[in-house]
């Protein structure tokens, strides 16, 4: 299917994502930060859809916006935020932060300006209908071992989280 209004949707979703990202790191109330992060994740899912990755977009919405962010909101409600909100929100590392931002931004700009011919106009046509099927074939074929390791990692994370959050073991 031929995509429509690609330019408009790209800039719209990119703006939503970046502005929500700015809100995440500037809001005083962590609940507002979490809601802004959900918006950023949804905008990014839209960008995945525009990149012909519908399965990753679905995983992003279900797992990130639906799973991880619920976990974040629960933890925000478990720890009391009233006292933390009255305190200073930024530590005295802002010089380092600005410096790191400038260096990283300069690095990215340099790489992208120097290497822009490397990723110009060589997009291969990814099939949209069979995307999930092809990902499954790769995941259970080439990446079988990594898949099993990932399941082990999740098991370790579950046990670790329960042990950490338990009052006494």
């Amino acid at each position, binding site marked *: 299917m031929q995509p429509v209004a*690609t330019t408009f949707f790209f800039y719209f979703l*990119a703006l939503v*994502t970046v502005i929500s*990202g700015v809100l*995440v*790191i500037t809001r005083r109330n*962590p609940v507002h*930060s*979490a809601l802004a*992060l959900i918006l950023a*994740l949804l905008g990014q899912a839209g*960008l*995945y859809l525009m*990149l012909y*990755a519908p399965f*990753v977009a679905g*995983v*992003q919405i279900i797992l*990130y916006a639906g*799973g*991880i962010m619920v*976990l*974040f909101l629960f*933890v925000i409600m*478990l*720890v009391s*935020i009233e006292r*933390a909100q009255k305190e*200073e929100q*930024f*530590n005295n*590392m*802002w010089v*380092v*932060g600005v410096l790191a*931002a400038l260096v*990283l*931004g300069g690095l*990215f700009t340099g790489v*992208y300006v120097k290497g*822009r011919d490397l*990723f*110009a*106009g060589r*997009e*291969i046509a990814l099939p949209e209908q069979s995307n999930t099927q092809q*990902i499954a074939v*790769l995941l259970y074929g080439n*990446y079988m071992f*990594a898949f099993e390791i*990932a399941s082990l*990692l*999740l098991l370790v*994370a*579950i046990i*670790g*989280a*329960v042990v*950490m*959050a338990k009052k006494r073991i």
Partner: protein
Amino acid sequence: MVPITTLHYLVVAAALFVLGVIGVLTRRNVVIVLMSIELILNAVNLNLVAFSRLYGLHGQIFAIFVITDAAAEAAVGLGILIAFFRNKETVNVDEVDLLKW
């Protein structure tokens, strides 16, 4: 009208990455530091999916693995945060100095 190329997506990802780094370095609230880490991981994911447009589906597989890692990291990190809050009644990173001498 300029067509949207891979470079556009990479610029968005770079912006998200820089925002995440600033958040990790400057915020005091641990919850927001963890959220900034999620922003960084998402920037990497966007890069991977954008490059999968050029080099085939492997980038999308890696994005899925990165999402799995992010879930594990969030679970353990928030568990540590709860344990820490129970002991010291604070969520500020600069008050976590038990190992400093």
